[in-house]
């Protein structure tokens, strides 16, 4: 079966679905029989208490973890497991829970690194930084400047990201993920550790990315208020199992979800 590209899939069709995924580390069952889909154009949230297996789920999708059971179908191609390089080259970008930037490099270079897969000029041109390789560098630089504009981080273009405050680092990380022009963007707690103002900024960027670029987004978030506002549909996980899946208002009133969050007498 030939791989499709994201453009072949209509808005509202499945971009990705996972079926019966189970993942364990030794005796610890991180994920048990989880299935859900992500349709093109939506903002899909994965929520759940600490240790529910949300990040593991994201890692399965972009290939850092290989599940023991189940399949991942992306762009109509069914697989037993993803590989990070494959995932990236097919259009899955991500950010990390604990910001994982290239701390020694500037904002600009970080975001340029995000375009690695878009740059194809071969090694020998690169070596001399001449001819096609140089033109390519300039062309990609332009795309990167647009992202920098979009995220309103012009003032820190040349700053080594290690020196930036946490909120801005998160923004740069989003920029790096966007640089690949992903068809599916995975955000692992994009608002963790932010103050109210920073959260509002980030929410705005997430919505803008979704609406302006039409990027499908799957995000993990703890802040219920934010999730209910942002997400089109929500998967709720608890102890590695899926306990609810649906529209925010349905999920909100689901007894299982309330129990998971508030605790329940067994």
């Amino acid at each position, binding site marked *: 079966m030939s791989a499709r590209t994201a453009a072949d899939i209509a808005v509202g069709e499945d971009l990705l679905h996972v079926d019966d995924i189970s993942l364990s580390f030794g005796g610890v069952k991180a994920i048990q029989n989880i299935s859900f889909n992500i349709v093109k154009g939506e903002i899909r949230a994965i929520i759940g208490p600490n240790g529910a297996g949300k990040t593991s789920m994201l890692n399965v999708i972009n290939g850092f973890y290989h599940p023991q059971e189940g399949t991942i179908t992306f762009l109509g191609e069914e697989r037993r497991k993803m590989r990070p390089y494959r995932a*990236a080259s097919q259009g899955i970008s991500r950010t990390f829970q604990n910001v*994982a930037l*290239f701390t020694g490099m500037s904002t600009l270079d970080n975001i340029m*690194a995000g375009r*690695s*897969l878009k740059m194809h*000029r071969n090694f020998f041109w690169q070596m001399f*930084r001449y001819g096609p390789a140089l033109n390519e560098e300039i062309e990609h630089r332009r795309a990167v400047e647009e992202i920098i504009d979009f995220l309103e981080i012009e003032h820190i273009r040349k700053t080594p990201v290690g020196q930036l405050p946490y909120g801005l680092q998160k923004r740069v990380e989003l920029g790096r993920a966007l640089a690949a022009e992903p068809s599916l963007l995975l955000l692992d707690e994009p608002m963790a550790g932010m103050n109210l103002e920073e959260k509002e900024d980030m929410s705005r960027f997430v919505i803008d990315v979704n609406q302006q670029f039409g990027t499908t987004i799957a995000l993990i978030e703890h802040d219920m208020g934010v999730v209910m506002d942002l997400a089109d549909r929500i998967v709720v996980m608890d102890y590695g199992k899926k306990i609810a899946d649906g529209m925010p208002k349905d999920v909100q009133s689901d007894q299982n979800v309330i129990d998971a969050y508030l605790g329940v007498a067994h």
Partner: protein
Amino acid sequence: MDLLFNIFVSPFIEMVTMPDFLLQVLWEGFVSGTLYALIALGFVLIFKASGVFNFAQGIMVVFAALTLVGFHAAGLPAYVSLVLALAVMGFLAWGVERVVLRHLVNQPDLILFMATIGLSYFLIGFGELIFGGEPKSMITEQLGLPTGSTTIEIFDGIVILQHLDIAAAAIAAILVAGLALFFSKTRIGRALRAVADDHQAALSVGISLNQIWAIVWFAAGIVALATGIMWGARSDVSFALQIVALKALPVLILGGFTSVPGAIIGGLIIGFGEKLFEVYWGGLLGGGVEGWFAYVIALIFLLFRPQGLFGEKIIERV
């Protein structure tokens, strides 16, 4: 009193009264400094990309030089041998990535370090098997490297510059500058720095660790070949050459394990330092200080700047 005079006064009087001799000493320090920088660069490249101290770098120098001499001994022209030796280093890089590194992703650094020790013993054994254990002489003239020397009259005296030394310093400088530029200005360089900072994040943007590692090991192989030619031309090509590579350790401690400029400046400091100390102060200790003085400088540095001159600061948040 005499001792203090010999330490603090007479060496400097000597320097001032015989400036031509001082110049000669500085020149020799500079030449060995650039060569140390070149060796250190091989270590830095691999350390940056994979966090591994490549114990096999020294033996790679010997292996590269032996390969070159070996091809030539088999009757091939010098330049063909050079190209083939480069190809062998490329193949070695590919093999190391394929057979060793790929299976050790996400293992602790110590495991990777042990693997490079294993690799160095493999290369020693393999090299001896193919090329034999006896020392060989470098094909200096066949490669078109200049011999002879130039005498410059200066300060009522003379300074002798060996042409081979000039070539060595020039080639080392070009290689160092070229690699530094390559790794700071190109996409692959950026990818290398990205990998150095964060493996997972690098993977997530589609940088291929395997490709980067192979490239970096190949670059280290090129550096090893250049080093092997230069040092081989000054003594001869034998397994004892790997001792020279150990001099890279104090250079790295000085410059920081992750810094390319650090490797350059560290190399020069060690080069100048040990030559000056040997010539002007060595006599007080009976001579032969060149062999260990570099390590003393390194120890002093460790006391005051454990991260080296340019290394990344070690800050632990608690």
